[in-house]
């Protein structure tokens, strides 16, 4: 067995499990900032030029990490060292304790029983509380520059990543994760994602508070 074959056995695909209870989470060590996920999302859902349901945030662009931390961004942050250039696919993580759902005054945002966080367009009043509450910048307001929304700052109707719920219903993974060349977007239940990251020698890039928001009690899987 060659080394490559061994590696293929060890490392799983980005999409491990779909449908009810599936979670989505970035492996920042694997992200190469290629933009494939953004393109896939826009192409699949016909997302306009003013909006990105998923975007790649790159920090410390062009900078080297401190010695020994080039591929260990999370450990670098934990130890107070510089992680160097790090790219994070940011989207809606369909949090267990979704703060957007918590603050929505009109119950437009709901955490469904199957785990997806959904925005009900016909109820959204564009107050943008969700924008303030979300730590990940997921809520988008593509109509915020149109007409009265711009004048009054009401934002129009909120839009965000749906984790391709319709695709998952028919057994497909989210478009961004399926498209990702380096499997940097992991889809599965919390335990599967934690196991896969452990295999890769990666660790969550987010702090404990953010992990608790995303995974709730299951955040312990990543300890």
């Amino acid at each position, binding site marked *: 067995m060659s080394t490559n074959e061994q590696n293929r056995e060890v490392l799983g695909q980005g999409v491990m499990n779909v449908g009810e209870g599936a979670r989505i989470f970035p492996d920042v060590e694997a992200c190469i900032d290629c933009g494939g996920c953004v393109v896939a999302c826009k192409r699949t859902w016909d997302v306009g030029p003013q909006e990105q349901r998923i975007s790649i945030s790159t920090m410390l662009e062009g900078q080297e990490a401190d010695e020994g931390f080039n591929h260990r961004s999370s450990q670098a942050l934990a130890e107070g060292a510089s992680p160097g250039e790090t790219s994070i696919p940011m989207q809606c993580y369909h949090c267990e*304790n979704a*703060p957007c*759902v*918590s*603050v*929505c*005054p*009109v*119950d437009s945002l709901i955490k469904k029983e199957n785990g997806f966080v959904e925005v009900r367009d*016909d*109820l*959204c*009043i*564009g*107050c*943008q*509380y969700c*924008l*303030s*509450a979300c*730590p990940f910048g997921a809520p988008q307001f593509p109509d915020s520059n149109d007409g*009265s*929304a711009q*004048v*009054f*700052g*009401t934002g129009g109707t909120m839009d965000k990543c749906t984790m391709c719920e319709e695709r998952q219903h028919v057994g497909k993974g989210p478009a961004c994760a399926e498209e990702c060349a380096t499997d940097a977007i992991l889809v599965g239940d919390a335990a599967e994602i934690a196991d896969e990251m452990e295999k890769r020698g990666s660790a969550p890039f987010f702090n404990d508070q953010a992990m608790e*928001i995303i995974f709730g009690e299951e955040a312990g899987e990543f300890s």
Partner: protein
Amino acid sequence: MTSLDHGKFTRMTTTFHALLGLDVFILFFTGYGIMFNDELWWLAELMGGTAGVAAVHRVAGAGLIALIVFWIVLMVITPTGRSNFREILLTREDIEAMIQDVKFMLGRADERHPNALQFAGGKADEVPLLTYIGKGVVYIFSVELTLLSISGLLIWSKTGVMEVYATRTAAMAFVVFHGLLGVIMVMGIMFHIFEHGFHPAFYPLEPKAFIPRSMIPEDHSGNGEWGIEKLELSPSWHWVTTVMGVLTVIGIVSFLVGSIFDEGYPVPRELVIGGGPTSLLMTIGINIGVFVLFVGIVLSMYGNVLRVRWEKELAQRQEEGETVAADGGEPSDD
């Protein structure tokens, strides 16, 4: 008109009161249409629907801030404003009036203190412009409107305080603060509507906040022509006041309970006591509360109608030569 309808406010104050009332009612109808969107879906639809209700709320909010700024400037630059400012300061007599009122309720005082009397027919130098209760209303509404304006502006501006605001805790804190303060204020407004709409001497509306004191004839002749004996209790006062009293209590309690148990807003899911879908009773109660507010805006409009009618009557009397001097004297007295 009787001597009980003593002039209290200037024309500017009555105009300001009417505008402030209208603006606050719009803020309430839009704000609660949003807060109790399931119980008051129809109100949100009436106030602009999902696309417009927040915009209407913000326009009314901007109007409120404009009114507040205008009023502060007026208080500072005009002699009347400065004297009004002195009138609302709490005095030792107000504290004594509070204590005496408690004793009066307990049957340990024969009468109420002059600082608790609104229209006792007392002399001007004995009875102050505002009772301690009136001063309390001014204080409470001023503090509430200021805090609601500040928190509203912070919620409106997503970038103004981003460094401290862009945290989950801060976002929730602003939402809870603005929402619950609004509920506290609406309870006060409901009581204010009941208090000034259903007094037996003035039912269905105390005109003092709508008819300026410059238009109220004063009678110092002592002949009783303008006295309390001219008043008749309206035959509908008993049952209307009872019904409105019940509705006011139901409205206040429903708004309070609804704000605590309605999951998501103003209390975030993690902090909510009850949560879940609201019951039919709660829906009815909150709608009753809105009905009380609706009665309030109707009474406010009626107050303005009363002023217009009184203006016409005064003009008519003047035409007919019924000139009354400020001291109540007739031209024939000279």
